[in-house]
């Protein structure tokens, strides 16, 4: 895969470079700030750009650079690395794009397998979220269910909550004492009410539905 990275900490940047090379990826460029990566990739796009969130231009140059990169090259994947896994940044990242994005802790991409798996999933269109953050978000649903979520029936909210817990259709059916067929109907209705188009892959729509749910709760909170 062709990648480029922007990270202001020299030690970490060099470590990541070595790991990417060992994993067999081609590094198009390696720079220390957000403006430099936008300049670098203006003429030479890559499959995935790897961005430190907290780097120059302060305070979060990775996010501002990503907005510009997404506008320049909508198909280019974006992997955000940070010392912190926080839902505040996840929501900002989802504001930049809900496809081909990833958000992971710096120390957690410290193996060739994890790093390559993360990059491959982003390149294939997925949203990759640091597991500890995803877990925290779905374990604590709260706040008023206004806005988009208000359009859902009570049963549909139940289904969506169980989807957010990562349950399969059969698992949801078991929890709610209904048939899997009924769950499918509810999910189709949820996708429809949340405005998720039928031409998106089923798994992808599932992720988006869950994220819409979480985001709506946060905005209400």
């Amino acid at each position: 895969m062709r990648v480029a990275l922007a990270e202001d900490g020299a030690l970490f940047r060099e470590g990541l470079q070595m790991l990417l090379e060992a994993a067999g990826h081609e590094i198009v460029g390696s720079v220390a700030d957000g403006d430099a990566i936008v300049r670098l990739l203006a003429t030479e796009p890559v499959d995935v750009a790897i961005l430190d969130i907290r780097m120059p231009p302060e305070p979060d140059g990775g996010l501002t650079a990503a907005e510009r990169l997404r506008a320049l090259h909508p198909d280019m994947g974006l992997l955000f690395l940070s010392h912190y896994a926080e839902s505040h940044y996840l929501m900002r990242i989802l504001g930049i794009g809900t496809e081909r994005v990833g958000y992971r802790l710096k120390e957690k991409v410290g193996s060739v397998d994890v790093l390559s798996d993360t990059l491959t999933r982003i390149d294939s269109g997925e949203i990759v979220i640091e597991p500890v953050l995803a877990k925290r978000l779905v374990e604590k649903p709260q706040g008023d269910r206004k806005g988009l979520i208000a359009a859902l029936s009570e049963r549909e909210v139940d289904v969506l909550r169980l989807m957010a817990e990562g349950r399969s259709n059969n698992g949801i059916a078991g929890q709610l004492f209904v048939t899997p067929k009924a769950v499918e109907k509810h999910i189709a209705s949820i996708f429809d009410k949340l405005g998720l188009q039928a031409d998106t892959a089923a798994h992808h729509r599932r992720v988006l539905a869950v994220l819409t749910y979480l985001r709506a709760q946060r905005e209400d909170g």
Partner: protein
Amino acid sequence: MAPDPLPTVLPGGPDDAWHQRMRLERELHDGPALRLSALALRLGLMSHRCEDPALADGIGEVQDELHAVLEELRNLAGKLYPPLLDEAGLGPALRQVAEHTDAPVAIVDSQERFGTALEGATYFALAECLAALPVGAPAVEVAISREGDELVLAVTGVEPDATGRLQETARSLGGRTDVGAAGSVVTARIPCA
């Protein structure tokens, strides 16, 4: 995350103490935390090159240990001055606290900024109040706004006794607190620039 009442007064006055805390958090982030993250990557590279499965397992264990150390550093940094408070302000930082509370908490804020010292002092006062919420407590709302030259913090749905540190903080910063009946609103008004 338990807010930790470190001494908040330095020779230069209380404002300096909050700036000092913020600088220490940045030093942790830019120094040891980044070095340890870089070490985790180097170990990953060693593990990739190593052909002895037992050694690779051992390297994996050292990486796990590094992850745990980094988690401890993050907790420590959060007790000094949460990075999100510095970068995004009271609302986002308190929303993060609300993710860990035992009761539902809604944060309503106008996304205004109030400066390092005032944000630091009120964040820890409110975080303490939220962290003390018992499991199953009814919904709590914290509203943050500016009215003229005052920062107004309105906490709805907590026992007034639980807002002791908020009241104390408001007083020490030249502000005042109105306390309603149990379960109603506690409002702190603190002068801001």
